[in-house]
């Protein structure tokens, strides 16, 4: 067997300059263009999203607001690649995720996205540490326990490692969920109503935590909410109504 010519090999596969899309990815984390989504139930069709376009810059805390039924969760699902839009494209970190196969999408989410849910979605049978460890295991990161403890420490729950979700308060559960979302250092955190199940004090603490995590590490945070009390932590807000974007307010 002849030796592989590594120079030639890399010269062929390594682009000399970043592509325009990759360059764009430096400042925009999420670009959604002309998203339409039609829910079909039997014979009935429902336009949940109509021509929604949205840009979220890297490192910003972006709120997606709107009344109940306006399509926020639907949009978030599409942005996360959990739902395929009827029309339109989604670009995350320079990758056209609407073009990816299911398995590539899963791999993309695993690497780049972290999720926080309204209902926490922790594994009730696992302890706080184990819940966070799962994310590390999925990502193939060694020493999951050590990393999990570090993350729980970051969200102020170092002493709750061995507690099961049922033994934690709502706010604590959401902190564990945030720790889990942070595992493996994803660039984008998506949260659907992370404060809805919490009282205002806990809710505010959670949002502040999310914001601080974003600001200290340059992560992009997209939060779906209809909680007006957390407006003050946002860099930008997109308002949805009846499946359409109504305002894009820039705060501050």
């Amino acid at each position: 067997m002849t030796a592989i010519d590594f120079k030639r090999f890399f010269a062929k596969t390594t682009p000399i300059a970043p592509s325009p899309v990759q360059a764009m990815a430096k400042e925009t984390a999420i670009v959604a263009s002309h998203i339409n989504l039609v829910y079909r139930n039997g014979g009935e069709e429902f336009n949940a999203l109509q021509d929604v376009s949205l840009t979220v810059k890297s490192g910003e805390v972006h709120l997606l607001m709107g009344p109940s039924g306006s399509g926020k969760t639907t949009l978030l699902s599409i942005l996360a690649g959990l739902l395929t839009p009827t029309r339109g494209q989604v670009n995350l970190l320079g990758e056209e995720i609407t073009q990816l196969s299911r398995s590539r999408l899963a791999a993309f989410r695993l690497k780049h996205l972290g999720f926080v849910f309204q209902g926490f979605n922790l594994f009730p049978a696992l302890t706080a540490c184990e819940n966070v460890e799962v994310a590390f295991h999925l990502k193939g990161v060694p020493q999951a326990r050590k990393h999990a403890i570090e993350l729980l420490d970051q969200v102020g729950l170092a002493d709750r490692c061995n507690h099961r979700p049922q033994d934690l308060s709502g706010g604590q559960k959401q902190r564990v969920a945030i720790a889990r979302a942070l595992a493996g250092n994803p660039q984008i955190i998506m949260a659907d109503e992370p404060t809805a199940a919490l009282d205002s004090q806990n809710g505010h603490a959670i949002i502040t935590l999310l914001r601080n995590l974003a600001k200290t590490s340059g992560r992009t945070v997209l939060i779906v909410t209809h909680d007006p009390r957390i407006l003050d932590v946002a860099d930008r807000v997109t308002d949805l109504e009846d499946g359409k974007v109504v305002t894009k307010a820039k705060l501050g």
Partner: protein
Amino acid sequence: MASIARKNLFEDIPRFLVAQAGIMFAVSLVTVQLGILRGFSRSTAIVIDYARADLWVASKEMVAFELTSPLPADYVNKSMAITGVDRAEILLVRAGRWRGADGKLSPARIFGFNPDGELFAGWTLSDGSLQAIKQPYTAIIASGVEKSLGLDENNRTGSIAGLPVTIVGTAEDVQSNASSPFLFSSLETANTYGDAEINSSINCVRQPDGNLNCTNSFKNRPLGQKLGDLASPQPLSLSDPISYILIRAKPGQNLPQLKQRLLAALPETQILTQAEIAAITRNYWEVRTGVGFILGLGATVGFIVGMVVVGQILYASVADHIREFGTLKAMGASNGVIYRIIIEQSLWMAILGYVPSIGICLTLGQWTQMTRGIMILIEPSTAAAVLLLTVVMCMGSAIFAVQKVTRVDPAIVFKA
């Protein structure tokens, strides 16, 4: 990974126990059905298995071990005269009606053989001795038939065709589940029991008008006759019908050739190896009677019921954790990861259901063997087959349950 499968399983212990009870039920059902089938099949020819003959001389008309036509007794002498034959022993297979001390009637299968012989009685006795049946009107019973024959510790007697029977021993694990209770006696005693039933004669007198006037007289001996008053059983005469001749070849004999020599010397017979006659008998019961089919059907139905039960349990468990699976998928877990969790869970359920079930079935088998002489045969191969079936059952239902998570609706994940 901290086993999500295992933790999910043990999260709710009462629920887990209920699920396991279902699986244990399914596994036990399959095991018992399979064990009965195997035990039944084994038992039908176990008497043959215990014998140590190289060849069996049987009537050409033999259908199965206990269903054969008689051979002339002098065939035993002819057999002895053939080159290569070391020993030839007679085996009688007779039927009789047993009347227990309680007066209840039961059919009985009577085997007659020479207690000094070497080829037939390979079984072990849990009590008594082979030599004891040299006493007239005595028999050894197969273990497990005591109840059917109305025998117990204090009462070891009964009668066949008015002749007394004293039980002088018990042979372990020899009873056929397809047959009547087994009694083993000396040739003479067995022959007498077997004859007595049919010991009737017809006397006919020609009437002047040419018609025959016949009277049928039975010579059954009255019940309750004392042993001392009875004549000893007559030794077998050359004209008596016998059932089989067991042959031991001289060392180093070519069995196929010996078979041919025997066949040539003994017309209207078939010469079978011990394995052949056992196989014919088992095949008869398994294939040619409905019994094997029914038991096989039972095992199949058990498997299907088990599959459904396990499928439901696993499906319910997956449905219970659907949000967690959805969350894993949202986090970017591949289908493979999720399948692995479900399959691991199903394997845990399989193993944890299997182990106690086999324990239960072994105990049950011991009990049926002890009390009824009915064997639920759980050989290592049966146990391995059931383990395989259990795993297939659980994996099969896991694959079924996996369908539920291949397409997780994001709505489930984001629901409050």
